């Protein structure tokens, strides 16, 4: 069993099942540090519907114990909206699902990338049932201590047009397509 098959067997939600489990396939289509468009805002047309199973998978992966996080029956009676509560870093799931291969933010899926720092601001708590889109731009590209960094600023928007959260995500990337190729084909 290769690794993609191993991961496919772990899939427990509809989004996990439909996601591409071969991370390295199509690496040639990834935006690299040297060709990432900067300060060119775009809106991602896909809609991420927050399903209860997505939230439960995230909360359980973290070992959460509060029943408002992991017990739908308890949440129905005690949570403000009757659904399990969403962890703020769940935004990661939304970003990875929306930033499909070939998109301007596809560099978050670059093999060989490193994660130095992140910032999330929550304006309104995400909820099960939210229908979310993303507005995003690569806000900066810089070199620090000889390493190539890129920062994206993404805003998560609900079906009413309200801004729910913002993330400033920074990665250190392999600088050139040749560097990416070395990691992708190792």
């Amino acid at each position: 069993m290769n690794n993609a098959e191993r991961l496919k067997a772990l899939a427990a939600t509809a989004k996990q099942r439909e996601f591409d489990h071969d991370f390295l396939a199509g690496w040639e289509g990834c935006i690299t540090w040297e060709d990432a468009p900067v300060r060119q805002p775009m809106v991602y047309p896909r809609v991420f519907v927050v399903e209860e199973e997505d939230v439960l998978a995230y909360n359980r992966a973290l070992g959460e114990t509060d029943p408002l996080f992991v017990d739908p029956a308890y949440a129905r009676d005690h949570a403000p909206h009757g659904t399990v509560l969403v962890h703020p870093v769940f935004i990661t799931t939304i970003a990875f699902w929306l930033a499909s291969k070939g998109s301007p933010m596809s560099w978050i899926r670059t093999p060989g990338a490193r994660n130095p720092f992140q910032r999330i601001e929550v304006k309104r708590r995400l909820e099960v049932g939210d229908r979310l889109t993303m507005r995003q731009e690569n806000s900066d590209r810089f070199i620090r201590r000889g390493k190539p960094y890129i920062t994206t600023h993404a805003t998560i928007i609900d079906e009413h047009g309200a801004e729910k959260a913002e993330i400033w995500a920074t990665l250190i990337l392999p600088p050139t397509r040749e560097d990416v190729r070395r990691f992708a084909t190792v």
Partner: protein
Amino acid sequence: MTTPRLPYLDDLQTGYMLPELVYEVTQDTIDAYGMASLDLNPVHMDPGWSARAQVFDDPRTVAHGMMSMSFMTSLVYRAFGAQADISAVDSKFTKPVPVGSTVTVQGMVRDVHPLGNGEDFVTINVEARDQHGDIIGVSAVDVRLPRKPGVRP
């Protein structure tokens, strides 16, 4: 099992320590987080690739930075309950966390912000350390909290 009671801002003072959390980082832990976050980067999810690529000069897979960020955020939820209204998390990752690590997360109230406009919040400094005592990540977590009834803003 019930949810902890959300504290009042007025119950907290700077220097208040939150109960620490300890996480064992196994490949199962990493796999569960990777699937839940859809971050299937082989540096986390593929032991064979990691051994060949050695992105961090180490043949082992490493935990997701976003998992460490989640652990540091969860410290607040374990202490204050899931209804804690976290408004910002600012994280820096300082050392890779290879599979097999033990991560201990500690936090302390750094600032209390009694704004008096319904947006009162505290800032909690969180540190995560590995089994060697090395810091693997730090965060500042802002949490909006209610005021105690009858307290002047």
